């Protein structure tokens, strides 16, 4: 705007509820932004203030479309692109599985393939509820499963049994005994339900019934009149021994990286690899590390286009022999790993009697480890053939 009284013109605009923004003084007037619908009501105001208005630039979709109205191929391309993206959005292009530890991703993917669900499956053919129910049925270790389709991603979240005791502590729906899983001596026993048949200090053998789910009910003359059945439940700790054996040759192969690297690139379209390996396979022995990135428009709108990079690190295998110290340290480390793994399972190490012997060709660790561990396996109670009363099955 230029000429006349600018300030009056601005005030008139404000009073007529015409919104102006980014008003900036220039050499012979002001430059400001205004909405298209407001622009047409400026004429009488400009005439009143004797202000001249000149359009410097037009921005926005209507002007863009008008400016490019002759570019039909471009418009057709835009439309085709939109349609293509819409078409791709009807399929599953990414499957994410989270929360699985013992059930590996390949196992889950194989299961999904059996259910005809995979890369490129039509989204409307995927029944999330049915798939979740199927997973729960076919994988008993899964205690919680959630399946949802989000964008082009099939997200599967699972929760597994990670605590073995939790599994054991589940109530079984029948009368049961607790039997010993291995030989040993009972060091501690707390019975919550059932009839204990052994006590602390008793020696037991594998298969012995420790707590019976069958409780005899006697009359005054101590004759059995009936049996009451229950699910035997107890914490029984026994002292037992574990045989330990570890042996490895002193002569062994080691991989030494030469420092030579080669890189390869590939593109994956609709599950098909289009690669330029650039001589990545020329190394005789090499570690190949791959990194793949899938094109994703929004947070979960994955598309079937991926690009990846492969890195091959060459190594040579050379034969080496452990020194006595190295062999002893390795055997000790293996033993510690074994003990730690057992401790993680809740086994208490009581005594460690393992000897490491190193011969000319091999290193051998043999011995017995005395441990205190929990025992008791649930088995169905064999019912005594007698009239039963008051069972709580």
């Amino acid at each position, binding site marked *: 705007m230029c000429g006349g009284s600018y300030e009056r013109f601005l*005030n008139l*605009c*404000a009073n007529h*509820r015409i*919104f*102006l923004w*980014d*008003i*900036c*003084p220039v050499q012979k007037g002001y430059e400001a932004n205004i909405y298209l619908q407001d622009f047409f009501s400026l004429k009488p105001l400009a005439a009143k203030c004797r202000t001249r208005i000149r359009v410097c630039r037009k921005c926005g979709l209507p002007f863009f479309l008008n400016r490019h109205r002759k570019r039909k191929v471009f418009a057709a391309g835009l439309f085709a692109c939109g349609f293509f993206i819409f078409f791709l959005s009807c399929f599953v292009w990414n499957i994410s599985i989270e929360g699985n530890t013992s059930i590996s991703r390949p196992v889950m993917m194989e299961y999904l393939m059996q259910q005809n669900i995979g890369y490129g499956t039509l989204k409307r053919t995927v029944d999330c509820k049915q798939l979740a129910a199927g997973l729960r049925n076919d994988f008993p270790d899964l205690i919680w499963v959630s399946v949802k389709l989000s964008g082009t991603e099939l997200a599967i979240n699972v929760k597994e049994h990670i605590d073995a005791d939790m599994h054991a502590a589940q109530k079984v729906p029948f009368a049961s005994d607790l039997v010993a899983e291995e030989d040993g001596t009972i060091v501690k026993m707390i019975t919550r339900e059932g009839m204990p048949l052994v006590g602390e200090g008793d020696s037991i053998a594998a298969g012995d019934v420790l707590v019976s789910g069958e409780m005899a009910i006697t009359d005054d003359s101590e004759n059995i009149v009936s049996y009451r059945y229950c699910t035997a439940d107890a914490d029984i700790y026994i002292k037992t021994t574990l045989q330990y054996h570890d042996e490895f040759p002193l002569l062994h192969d080691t991989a030494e990286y030469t420092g030579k690297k080669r890189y390869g690139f590939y593109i994956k379209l609709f599950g098909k690899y289009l690669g330029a390996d650039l001589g990545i396979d020329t190394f005789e022995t090499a570690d190949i590390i791959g990194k793949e990135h899938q094109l994703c428009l929004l947070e979960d709108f994955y598309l079937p286009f991926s690009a990846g990079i492969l890195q091959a690190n060459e190594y040579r295998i050379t034969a080496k022999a452990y020194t006595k110290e190295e062999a002893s340290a390795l055997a000790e480390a293996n033993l510690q790993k074994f003990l730690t793994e057992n401790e993680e399972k809740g086994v208490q190490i009581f005594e460690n009697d393992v000897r490491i012997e190193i011969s000319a060709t091999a290193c051998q660790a043999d011995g017995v480890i005395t441990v205190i561990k929990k025992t008791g396996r649930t088995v169905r109670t064999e019912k005594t053939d007698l009239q039963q009363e008051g069972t709580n099955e």
Partner: protein
Amino acid sequence: MKKLASAMGIPEDLSEKAALLELTGQNALRVENYLGIIEYSDSRLLLQCKNCRLEICGQHLFIESYAREELQLRGWIEQIHYF
């Protein structure tokens, strides 16, 4: 009237239409309850309020938005005068 509004706890920007200024640092100023612009350049903005005139001096001043209710000014604000 002024005393009554004061006794009722009505703020002066409502009862007296006093100019309301919100200054953010030295770069942004929001003004309410003004009547109009008297003069505007990139170093000076003179506003007419109900009871006074307000002069804002600075450098590279530009009006970010201008409506009947409020005005938002940006730039390097150096002085604000009432007279």
